[in-house]
């Protein structure tokens, strides 16, 4: 078999694989964009655990254990804290994904969408996933010491507050748009 044929086979198989994966995903989605439940589920949860995470990562605890505790205890605490950080990273990612979901819903329900913003979000998403996976693998392999995540958490929390305000505003606007559409269907706009 020639190289040409092999490359054609590979290309076709790749395209079919991508099609099946993408169509299977969209097939399984039970909720269309615009479902109010999807908006409600986009609240961020990680921020409520931030004080505990800060405590778990505090340097003073570590110093105390180094001075007073045994090496076995220190290792055990370190291992448990690594698990906590990994869990926290997972939550951060979940929050990131929730923000993305909101952004997608807004884009899907917008009459105009700009390619620049959409590409930018795609690029940022790929970058986030790449960095997240590297940090996660390093932590799992025990190659990296425990990171300081408070700065990261503040950013997500800030985003959360602003997004929640925006979602409230969106809900009010969407309700107004629906009322307006139904009034038009009835044959005219209701006069107040």
């Amino acid at each position, binding site marked *: 078999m*020639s190289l040409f044929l092999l490359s054609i086979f590979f290309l076709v198989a790749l395209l079919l694989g991508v099609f099946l994966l993408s169509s299977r995903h969209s097939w399984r*989605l*039970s909720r269309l964009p615009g479902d109010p439940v999807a908006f409600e589920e986009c609240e961020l949860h990680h921020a409520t655990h931030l004080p505990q995470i800060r405590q778990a990562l505090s340097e003073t605890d570590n110093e105390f254990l180094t001075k007073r505790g045994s090496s076995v205890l220190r290792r055990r605490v370190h291992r448990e804290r690594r698990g906590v950080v990994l869990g926290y990273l997972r939550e951060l990612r979940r929050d990131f994904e929730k923000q993305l979901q909101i952004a997608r819903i807004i884009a*899907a329900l917008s009459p105009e969408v700009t390619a620049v913003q959409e590409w930018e979000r795609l690029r940022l998403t790929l970058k986030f996933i790449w960095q997240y996976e590297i940090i996660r693998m390093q932590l799992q392999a025990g190659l990296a010491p425990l990171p300081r995540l408070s700065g990261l958490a503040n950013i997500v929390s800030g985003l959360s507050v602003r997004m929640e305000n925006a979602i409230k505003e969106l809900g009010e606007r969407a309700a107004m748009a629906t009322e307006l559409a139904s009034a038009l269907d009835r044959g005219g706009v209701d006069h107040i």
Partner: protein
Amino acid sequence: MVAPVVYFQWALFALLFLSQAALVAIFLARKSWRAYPAFFSYILLNLVQGGALFAIYRSRGFSSDLAQYFGWASQGAIILARALAIAELCRHLLARYSGIWALTKRLIFVCGVALALYSVFAAGRRWDTGVLKADRGLELTIIVVIVVLFLCARNYGIAASPIIHALALGFCLNSAFWVLNDAILEQKFAPYDALWNILNALTYLATLLLWIWTFRNPLPDAEVDPTLLPRDVYRVMAPEVNVRLRLLNESLSKLYKAEARRS
């Protein structure tokens, strides 16, 4: 003495003809052609082409010049009809979401034009291999367009109905086998020459059966268009989300660099 493979070919073409006729009948009975006029035209055109080819094969023979020329020339009309049917499929999936649809249309247009141009250049000026190469390129274009469409739908969480999914799957599988068959035939494998038509016909038959199964029931009522948000919501929110995501990325990046230095 007629070879058994010829009988098989006749039987296969008769089966194809009947399947297409059945699909057309289903469309007429269920009035599905109102929702999918371009797809209906594509199937109808295929049926007419099949009937005409059948008549030519019977009168002039399977390998006659007329059969060859008519087969390839009518294929142009079929490809055009298929392009319109696929455009219809894209519209059914995304047109309700006008912003996403506008973006996806541009993406599909760019991919489609690029691949179609490649097909024309790849075809060259030789009649015998040129048609084959152009056909291969166009079939590849169809697959890419459908893949881009579904990737966009997936990216925005837009679900395809089972009908749209079956239509897309049928077009994709059919085009994929055409690409492979054209590529193999282009390599001039002598024994494959006879099989080429049979394999293409079998693929198309499988696709037709899938579509018949999909359209056997009346189409569901048209879905209500979603209420779109005011224009300024996206203009304000999209850059805001992107700025925040960028900040989040920068923090991860700093974290990663800090860890790299420490370790």
